[in-house]
């Protein structure tokens, strides 16, 4: 794969008047944004037909920086707004750029129901294990024992495995990578963008300022090293015992299937309605 220069991607897709971004040094959101834009570029998708939707948080600021139609909504509700956009105009391709707190805590219900419906949307999910924008509180993904400003003695709750949750709820495509698996990441986003129905690419993404600093990982490289310790590729994980997988995070492609998406199902429903009412044969 030949990568075009990052400057070219920037000049082509970002709103220059909105730069610089609000992201802190060492943050992974910019990288994931770049992968997403590269995927769009490589697939030659029409930017006029793509809408970026987001909720609240650092990652949710992304639609402001990209030169596309964008809806920066309320906390956790991105997928509910997306449902309206997509069903009202199925021509539009929707990218929901979300954070882990946004998607799995306040937006948890919308998340599982959008997946259950197989809403035609590509979710790019930044999982940094924390609430970054509000200053490092624990998230529903924070690994047990790690600290946040609202669990200064170490998180005592069990974390969500967002990717596995999405698989169980019925998503058509689910993959998880760290921001440093960039080739796999871009390829997964490309696959996700071409999927009918719900697709999710989750990225473990460093937040040294709000999360790392409180957990003895003050810099992005320290967090990378930690990712290397805690992540296990899915093929390897299949051969491992449950005890060995304790505390590990599996990365890779979890599911790739082709159940009909919500738009197609609704089109069928309309036809059925007209037939049942004798409007059409």
């Amino acid at each position, binding site marked *: 794969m030949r990568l075009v220069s990052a400057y070219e991607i920037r000049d082509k897709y970002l*709103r220059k*008047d*909105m730069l610089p971004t609000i992201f802190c040094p060492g943050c992974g959101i910019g990288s994931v944004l770049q992968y997403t834009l590269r995927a769009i570029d490589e697939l030659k998708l029409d*930017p*006029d*037909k793509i*809408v970026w*939707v987001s909720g609240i948080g650092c990652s949710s600021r992304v*639609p*402001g920086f990209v*030169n*596309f*139609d*964008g*809806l*920066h*909504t*309320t906390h956790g*509700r991105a997928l*509910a*707004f*997306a*449902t*309206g*956009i*997509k*069903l*009202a*105009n199925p*021509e*539009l391709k929707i990218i929901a750029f979300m954070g882990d707190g946004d998607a799995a805590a306040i937006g948890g*219900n*919308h998340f599982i*129901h959008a997946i259950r419906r197989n809403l035609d949307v590509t979710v790019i999910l930044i999982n940094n294990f924390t609430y970054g924008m509000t200053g490092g509180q624990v998230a529903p993904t924070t690994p047990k024992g790690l600290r946040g400003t609202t669990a200064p003695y170490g998180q005592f709750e069990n974390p969500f495995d967002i990717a596995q949750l999405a698989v169980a709820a019925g998503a058509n495509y689910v993959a998880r990578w760290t921001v440093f698996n960039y080739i796999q990441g871009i390829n997964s986003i490309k696959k996700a963008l071409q999927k009918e129905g719900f697709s999710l690419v989750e990225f473990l993404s460093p937040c040294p300022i709000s999360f790392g600093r409180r957990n003895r990982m003050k810099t992005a490289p320290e967090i990378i090293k930690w990712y290397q310790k805690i992540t296990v590729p899915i093929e390897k994980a299949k051969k491992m015992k449950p005890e060995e997988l304790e505390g590990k995070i599996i990365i890779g492609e979890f599911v790739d299937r082709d159940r009909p998406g919500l738009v197609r199902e*609704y089109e069928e*429903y*309309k036809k*059925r*309605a*007209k037939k049942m*009412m004798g*409007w059409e044969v």
Partner: protein
Amino acid sequence: MKYPFPVGTADFIQGDEAIARAAILAGCRFYAGYPITPASEIFEAMALYMPLVDGVVIQMEDEIASIAAIIGASWAGVKAMTATSGPGFSLMQENIGYAVMTETPIVIVDVQRGGPSTGQPTLPSQGDIMQSIWGTHGDHSLIVLSPSTVQEAFDFTIRAFNLAEKYRTPVILLSDAEVGHMRERVYIPNPDEIEIVNRKLPQNEEEAELPFGDPHGDGVPPMPIFGKGYRTYVTGLTHDERGRPRTVEREVHERIIRRIVEKIEKNKKDIFDYEVKEIEDAEIAIITTGIVARSALRAVRDLRREGIRAGLVKINTIWPFDFEFIEKIAEKVERIYVPEMNLGQLYHLVREGANGKAEVKLISKIGGEVHTPVEIVEFIRRDMR
């Protein structure tokens, strides 16, 4: 176009059903909702009709998702509505604010029931008047309409869509369980008998680049809907005319919020709607809204028969509220009575409008029963003694 119900003729239907039919005639093609008594019949009628007119109807996971979905649909260029009752309406408040801030035309129906909390699901109330006006946080203004009859439920729904589109704002139709469940004769007009307003779309690139500006000087910017190549960024954060977040600049916040509020308040004469009966020579006025206005009208007639010169002011638009109009009424009469099915909500607005020019008395009733005309008459008779 073919309609899934008879048009150009009268029908005998429920208030909730009338709202659904009116929405379809007004051009609504997206409905998202969550079942709740006494608003569910709106959803059920929409579920029956929408697929037949190539519209979308979807049952969301909750009320928050429902209003979120209709805001999304509106930005995709489609007229959209949701309906709920008190508890669901409370859940929608955050996104009502979002719709105000992003100037998104949507219609929200609140079929009021007794509250607070789960309250009286099957019984009417007017307990959401203040919530409909001031439920969301921050400085804002929006439009609230209040029907008294099934025919008005129909007519005001069409007006709600037209006002939403004209002013790029959320409009709340504040019905109640009584109007919602009551069956009455309603004239369902032919589509060509109805005036339909559609939102302003940008006429050129320049206008499209200012989705939150004021290119026409009327406070209402054209709305560049998604997918047309305008690359519009919409955010609930304080934003400038181009839609860029400008959260810490006092002047930017003041500029956008004042315009959003003023586009409603400055057009009060166009939006505020009322009906008066027997008010010319009245010594007392009954000012009320919604279902109670019907009992009040009968009370006015009964009082007149007893020689008390009573008049009725039926408020059809609860917000923006024409305080000056109420002051003029107050100047003409000695006393104003406000019967309403709560502990005093419209009363606050009327008292402020009366501005001390007349004595304002609340005739409050809660528990899920509409005031009888006799109750209103007796209260007034006692009070005048």
